[in-house]
């Protein structure tokens, strides 16, 4: 008995400092799928944000894509995420605001979806209400003027589907479907929506030339005494073309949609909305958070002559008393030409993003 005790102590003494590895067993793991980061992005800006609790996997992205295009997520099964975020429109749609399943229109323009993983502060949507892509994806399903469904119903439908339980098992190692796993999969797919192949991108990489009009438009964009667009939308050093920050750009004197102010409760934030990226403007009309401008010409004219003063108008809005930066006709045309060079037609047709 005593000998046995000594042997036990010997085992303890020898094993006390060893790693507490459990015996290896063969378990299924989803296949990692790191984001394919464009050279321009890796050269110029820091790494994208991937949550530790939702790594990108082949199976997760595939599941997310299927869910993104699936009308089962809506109450009457007529509407999918893609209904308002169509690949052919750079993942937005072309109405000022979007119609839900009951024929009711919302109050905000559907935001285009690309390069979302590089939103470092992780405030999503026009008013910054959602603090991750995963959380954003939760909201439209139950929104009464959008998909007007119920997560319990959606989960029941997915759970009783012939394919989804197995797809969830492959993606998340469980066939028990939850809304959290559903939105994780959708977020994984959305993070793959990367747009970085515009004419301007290729110009930056030395693979393309721009017209003199486009280059003059870039100058208008960057000059403080002309467009001064770069303080909110960045420079060629930042290929996102947005600061992902919230500004009151002078749309209204009397702010009715509080924007960020409605989220923070701080009246100093009233009328502030996220600067959208200027990529893919060729496909994302109409513009602004409420889709009030049908054309890019109208947008440029607004910044040139249409600014409305208010207590929270951004300090970078210039010459407000005269309506704006007062661009010449030529400068406006050149600016438009430059802005359109930021559009990436290959993003619309990427087979990985189609239903």
């Amino acid at each position, binding site marked *: 008995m005593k000998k046995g005790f*000594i042997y036990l102590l010997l085992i*303890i*003494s020898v094993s006390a400092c060893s790693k507490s590895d459990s015996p290896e067993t063969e378990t299924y793991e989803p296949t990692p799928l790191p984001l394919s980061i464009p050279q321009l992005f890796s050269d110029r800006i820091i790494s994208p944000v991937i949550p530790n609790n939702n790594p990108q996997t082949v199976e997760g992205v595939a599941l997310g894509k299927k869910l993104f295009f699936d009308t089962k997520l809506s109450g009457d099964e007529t509407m999918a995420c893609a209904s308002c975020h169509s690949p052919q429109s750079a993942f937005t749609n072309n109405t000022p605001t979007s119609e839900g399943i009951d024929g009711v229109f919302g109050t905000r323009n559907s935001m285009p979806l690309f390069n979302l993983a590089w939103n470092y502060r992780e405030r999503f949507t026009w008013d910054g209400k959602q603090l991750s892509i995963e959380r954003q994806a939760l909201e439209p399903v139950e929104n009464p003027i959008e998909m007007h469904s119920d997560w319990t119903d959606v989960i029941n439908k997915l759970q009783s589907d012939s394919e989804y339980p197995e797809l969830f098992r492959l993606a998340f190692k469980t066939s028990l479907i939850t809304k959290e796993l559903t939105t994780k999969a959708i977020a994984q797919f959305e993070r793959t929506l990367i747009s970085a192949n515009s004419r301007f991108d290729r110009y930056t990489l030395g693979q393309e030339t721009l017209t003199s009009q486009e280059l003059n438009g870039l*100058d208008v964009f960057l000059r*403080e005494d002309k467009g001064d667009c770069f303080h909110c939308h960045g420079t060629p*050093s*930042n290929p996102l073309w947005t*600061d992902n920050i919230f500004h009151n750009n002078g749309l209204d004197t009397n702010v009715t949609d509080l924007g960020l102010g409605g989220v923070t409760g701080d009246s100093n934030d009233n009328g502030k909305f996220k600067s959208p990226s200027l990529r893919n403007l060729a496909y994302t009309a109409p513009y602004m958070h409420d889709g009030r401008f049908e054309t890019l010409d109208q947008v440029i004219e607004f910044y040139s002559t249409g600014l409305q003063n208010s207590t929270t108008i951004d*300090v*970078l809005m210039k010459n407000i008393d005269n309506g704006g930066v007062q661009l010449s006709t030529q400068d406006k045309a050149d600016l438009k030409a430059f802005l359109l060079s930021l559009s990436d037609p290959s993003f619309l047709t990427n087979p990985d993003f189609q239903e």
Partner: protein
Amino acid sequence: MKRFFALLLCSTLAFTSCGEDLDDNLVLKTEAETTFNFTHNWDETEVTSASFDSIQYLNQNGDSLSIEKLRYLISDITFSREGEEDIVLDIYNLVDVTNSTNLSFSPETKIPLGQYTNVSFTYGFDDEDNIENAYPDLNSENWEVPNIQMFGNIGGYHYMQLEGRFINNADEETTYAYHNIRAADGMATPITTQDTSIQVNLGAITITNDITFQVKMNIAEWFQNTYQWDLNTWNSSLMGNFDAQLRMNENGQNVFSLGTVTQ
């Protein structure tokens, strides 16, 4: 008896084999960690993001103003010693008062204990470091200066963005954007640029232990001493204004000071 000793030996092994080596604590300390805490004031009044957005400050010119955004860059923290080469930490830190980030900065490099004739840093980037596209993290913060003629065809990065509103001579509330960069006269032939970063000297210090420096920025000084800044004249589009940038450099000489030092 033998069994007893075997038992004792095994027990000792089992319970002490993972213990910390206590003699680690006996190593003589020769280097110090340094920390720089950046605080902000308008003369005697503390300024934080909580005090933003309200017109409450009066500059020397008599303009009442608010602060809505303040962020600035410091770089190249340097420790100078008598008879030895300077220790230059080739680092930078973007102090963002608006978002209350990077208000405290601890360089990774430890500094030898001893007497230093000066501790200094560069406000902004000097020309050696002010290189277009050199810093992806700063690009990601939209901190870059466009590479266009107006700004000297040289790119680089902002030194500071100070923005807010003020009451102008017509008694109307209007905006200002006091943006400081490397001065450039894009209209000159040839184009002229001037390194307007500022070496900030905190003075001599004897470092005996891990040390924390409080670096104070008196924001009021950006508008005075020696140039009395009139926001009615210079309030926006200042990046391409060569003369305005030189005046910022002039006033910036007195903006920073050393606060408390603890070690």
